[in-house]
């Protein structure tokens, strides 16, 4: 049931006329649901602004919340849900703040026409649902932000030795993380000029074909840049699973522990140095 222009105008007048009583009654109701987690003065101010928003929307004979005169009100509601979401209030607590406006209106005016009130009520319901939607959207943004932060956190590239960098992988290696790992590793190889990279998969719970493919691609990319890549942290159960799956690591060096991999790399680096020195002496 949408609000007719007459009804909207009548309510706009009422909301304007009884503004103080209305805001006080409304604030009291909201304060009781939020149980003192927001100060009374703060609520009073918020509700005062929202009342003005409702009044403007109604005075502009907005028939529903999507209408042009309600733009200001929509912005206020979005703002309200975003602050409440960030302050840790639940979705219900946020929406109830708007629903409480109906009770306040009903109590403030005696003898409101039932039909008028129902139309007005559905307008407020729409507003409350709108806060609910905005609340969910803000929460989803928060979660997406956190997921991104986690992605950054969980993929460090550490310098293990002079000329040796290591990537300790922990957790699930999905496409997004594999991409981050590859970018980080390749950039670190350039920045440090390291000829060796160790990818440690001790913290990866299961190596399936997708994970293996991501690792293989990373190794190939590192090789293209002239770095030697070693995969370490292959536990017995992972080794048996990889064999059963039929994944072949080809000529990529693999070691069971990070220590073994480092020892292998250092020995190899030592050999290279020796052979260079002996070459220099020979001619």
């Amino acid at each position, binding site marked *: 049931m949408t609000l007719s222009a007459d009804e909207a105008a009548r309510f706009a007048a009422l909301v304007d006329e009884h503004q103080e009583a209305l805001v006080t009654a409304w604030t009291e109701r909201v304060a009781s649901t939020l149980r003192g987690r927001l100060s009374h003065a703060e609520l009073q101010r918020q509700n005062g602004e929202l009342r003005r928003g409702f009044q403007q929307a109604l005075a502009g004979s907005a028939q529903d919340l999507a209408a042009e005169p309600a733009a200001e009100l929509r912005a206020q509601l979005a703002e309200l849900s975003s602050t409440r979401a960030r302050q840790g209030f639940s979705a219900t607590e946020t929406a109830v703040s708007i629903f409480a406006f109906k009770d306040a209106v009903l109590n403030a005016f005696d003898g409101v026409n039932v039909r008028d009130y129902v139309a007005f009520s559905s307008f407020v319901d729409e507003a409350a649902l709108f806060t609910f939607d905005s609340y969910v959207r803000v929460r989803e943004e928060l979660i997406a932000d956190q997921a991104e932060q986690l992605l950054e956190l969980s993929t460090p590239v550490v310098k293990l030795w002079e000329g040796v960098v290591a990537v300790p992988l922990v957790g699930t290696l999905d496409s997004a993380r594999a991409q981050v790992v590859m970018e980080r590793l390749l950039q670190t190889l350039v920045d440090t000029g390291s000829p060796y990279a160790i990818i440690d998969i001790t913290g990866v719970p*299961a190596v399936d*074909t997708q994970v293996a493919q991501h690792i293989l691609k990373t190794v190939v990319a590192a090789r293209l840049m002239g770095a030697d890549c070693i995969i370490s942290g292959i536990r017995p*159960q992972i080794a048996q*699973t990889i064999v*059963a*799956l*039929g994944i072949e690591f080809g000529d990529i060096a693999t070691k069971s522990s990070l220590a073994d991999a480092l020892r292998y790399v250092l020995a190899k680096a030592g050999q290279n140095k020796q052979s260079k020195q002996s070459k220099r002496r020979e001619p």
Partner: protein
Amino acid sequence: MSEQGQRIEVVTDQDVVRVRQLVRTLAVAVKLSLVDQTKIVTAASELARNTLVYGGGGWVEATSVDNGRRKGIRIVFADQGPGIADLDLAFTDGYTTGGGLGLGLSGARRLVDEFDIVTAVGEGTTITVTKWCR
């Protein structure tokens, strides 16, 4: 003899992770060895991803089973996707239509004790796998 299974709808990448976690929990509960736990979790991961990528999404149901002598875990993967036209080709190592390694389906079969596949073109695919305790 089997208990009520737990079903997970597979619609996003995140659901594959949930399948893996569920299978791992069940595998620990029926006391599979560490190697077998890893094998069944990996197989579940492969098949759940197939359900998602090639089947266009579906559901996975994991149940602990008991045949009187041994305990085990049974997992059903079902989708309403395009189905598999040539099963022999699909089970060939290295054959892929999606840019993967082409080892998921054939590898998963090698990771489990029992493997059953029902598929028809245009009617989707249902795969049932079982891993028994040694």
